[in-house]
């Protein structure tokens, strides 16, 4: 019985860390630039598939493939910003109050386009990337792939770096300020457009890493894009839109809820409790667990 508990503990930790990384990027994007990027899942999938292409077709080692995947994530993020989000935000024909909805719809459609493009060129079959470190290790009698632990370590390291960036560097503090009051920041003379470029860059890196790690762990397919976006969305709403700490907490709540369900009930019902929880939270505390507004 304790074996099972240990298994759930480890499995849940890795998957929650992965969810957390993706969700942090998503919530940062919303917090700083007000954009709910519904092409989030597609961005992760593009990163995953790029890593697979580089690893397979060019017989590169997994680390090089991983870097290629992250680069693809950044490229996709910028493409989303420059081709979809920025034109809508700057458009004169869209009323200001409706801009958010247009951006939402725009990113949704863009996400579908990316998803279909991946399926067209590479089929909708899941793609996997060789684990960064192969092999298994025993933890308390539980045989765990080393890669799974590495994923948890990488996710937390990246989140830690992000925290340092936001709290200890000037650029990071500008980001934080932009998320609190962009107008004040503009009045103070800061170029908001450069802030947005920075946040999209950070977002691309986070989504790229999350996508590549997902490919090494469970595999990613173009068909999963919408589910990944929905997952991130639920986590972020549960944690409180715009709160990074909230997203991390929510990621672990949902990650463990899913793992417990998969082990104790059935993998088929894995995503259900999280959705039920989301509805409950929205009823009882619409701001989410640690939300600000």
């Amino acid at each position, binding site marked *: 019985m304790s074996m*099972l508990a240990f*298994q759930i503990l480890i*499995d849940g930790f890795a*998957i929650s860390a992965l969810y957390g990384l993706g969700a942090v990027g998503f919530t940062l994007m919303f917090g700083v630039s007000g954009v709910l990027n519904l092409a989030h899942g597609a961005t992760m999938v593009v990163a995953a598939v790029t890593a697979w292409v580089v*690893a*397979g077709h060019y017989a590169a080692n997994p680390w090089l493939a991983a870097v290629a995947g992250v680069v693809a994530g950044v490229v996709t993020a910028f493409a989303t910003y420059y081709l979809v989000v920025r034109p809508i935000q700057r458009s004169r024909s869209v009323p200001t109050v409706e801009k958010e909805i247009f951006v939402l719809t725009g990113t949704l459609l863009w996400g579908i386009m990316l998803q279909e493009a991946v*399926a*067209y060129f590479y*089929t*909708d*079959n*899941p*793609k*996997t*990337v*060789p*684990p960064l470190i*192969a092999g*298994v290790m025993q933890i308390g009698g539980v*045989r765990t*792939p080393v*890669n799974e632990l590495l994923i948890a370590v990488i996710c937390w390291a990246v989140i830690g770096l992000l925290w340092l960036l936001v709290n200890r560097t000037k650029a990071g503090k500008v980001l934080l300020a932009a998320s609190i009051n962009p107008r004040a920041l503009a009045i103070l003379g800061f170029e908001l457009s450069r802030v947005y470029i920075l946040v999209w860059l950070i977002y691309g890196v986070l989504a790229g890493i999350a996508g590549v790690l997902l490919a090494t762990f*469970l*595999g990613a397919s*173009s068909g*999963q894009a919408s589910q990944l976006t929905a997952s991130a969305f639920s986590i972020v709403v549960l944690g409180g839109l715009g709160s990074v700490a909230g997203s991390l907490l929510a990621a672990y709540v949902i990650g463990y809820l899913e*793992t417990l369900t*998969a*082990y104790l009930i059935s*993998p*088929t019902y*894995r995503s259900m409790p999280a959705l039920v929880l989301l509805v409950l939270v929205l009823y009882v505390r619409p701001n989410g667990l640690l939300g600000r507004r």
Partner: protein
Amino acid sequence: MPGCSKTDLHARAALVVAAGLACLPIGAVLGQSKEPIKIGIISEESAIAGAGISRAAQVAADEINAAGGVDGRKLEIVQYDDHSSAADAVRAFQRAVSQDGVVAVIGTYITEIALALEPWAARSHVPFITTGAASNEITRHIHETYDKNRFTFQEYLNSTFIADSICTSIKQLLQPKYVIKSAVVLSEDAAWTTPLDAEYLVCLPKIGVQVLDHIRFSPDTSDFTPLYNKIEGQKPDVIVTGISHTGVQPTVQWAQQQLPIPMIGNSSQATSGTFWRDTNGAAAGIVAFSLAVDGADLTPKTQAFINAYAKRFGEAPPYTGFTTVDAVNVVAQAIKRAGSTDGEKLVTALEQTDYVGTIGRVQFLGRDSEFTHGMKFGDGYVTGIALQWQDGKQVPLWPKAAPQSKIVFPSFTHLSPKP
């Protein structure tokens, strides 16, 4: 008209009509000898098995046309992507028949889609051959309402036959070498696995294998760790699989977690030449059922087709490639036999099929069988094969093992050798 009498007009009219009538048959005959024969292919282009269908159809048509076509007429493949959706497939079928004038439709590896197309074949009186869908439901409808559903044929071994083939391969290939007394059946929850699992539960005990558990998972499952942990706790000798929509993820996770239990059975994606690359080598040791494979040499046509397909598309065909290339030839021969492309005549001609293709000798079962219009299964006809992925290659092991080949499982597999 001034100067024309009424009889004059009648005579002119009669002359025009007679001339027109005289032109008709000549025009029809002239037109017919030049008109290509259109065959509709409905497949899931974003899926590996689906893409194999349309590609193999092209290879088949090109070969037939290079040899002179069908009675001097060229075969033209009209291709439709159904996006793995039954609704899209039905629309494609309707269009193929009413607008594009196809004489037969070949396609789909998805049972749910084949079942959706079956009544449309019946309504439009156009033969429909599925070259990948396995469920017994397809032929059950033909058997029970023959007059209506006789337009559908299943040119693939049905789920029951697949399970029987796999049980026989375990008995003849693995049991002589290893102790295999228990198994867990692991299948995706889809229409085609219901009869497959039912037959596993019957044929496995018959060869002395106790079924410890029967797990059906949702095809959307992406994390198999909980399932594998459960299975490992039950300590079976083998895992017998029934997977088609999934393949890469369960295989990769099986290898990454180093599950000590070998997997053998139906894994449709493992039949594709790209599976090794798709899984980054995690496929090593997987034993999969297919209808043919590189090196199996079932018939003189098997290897020739593999080479032609690989030359054109850069990879070996999935299982649907073999069945489809044979199906196009079966249709071509039926048209020759019937001397017509009329649906009713084609059905009768198709029932008389006796064709040695890439998968063996293809014949369709008759009304006396419960699997009417299914493919005949057994020695001398189509038996299926077992292949194992080794070092990036699909090695045929059963019923005819490739020369100098042996069974190779990954180092983390625990199987007791037979004493």
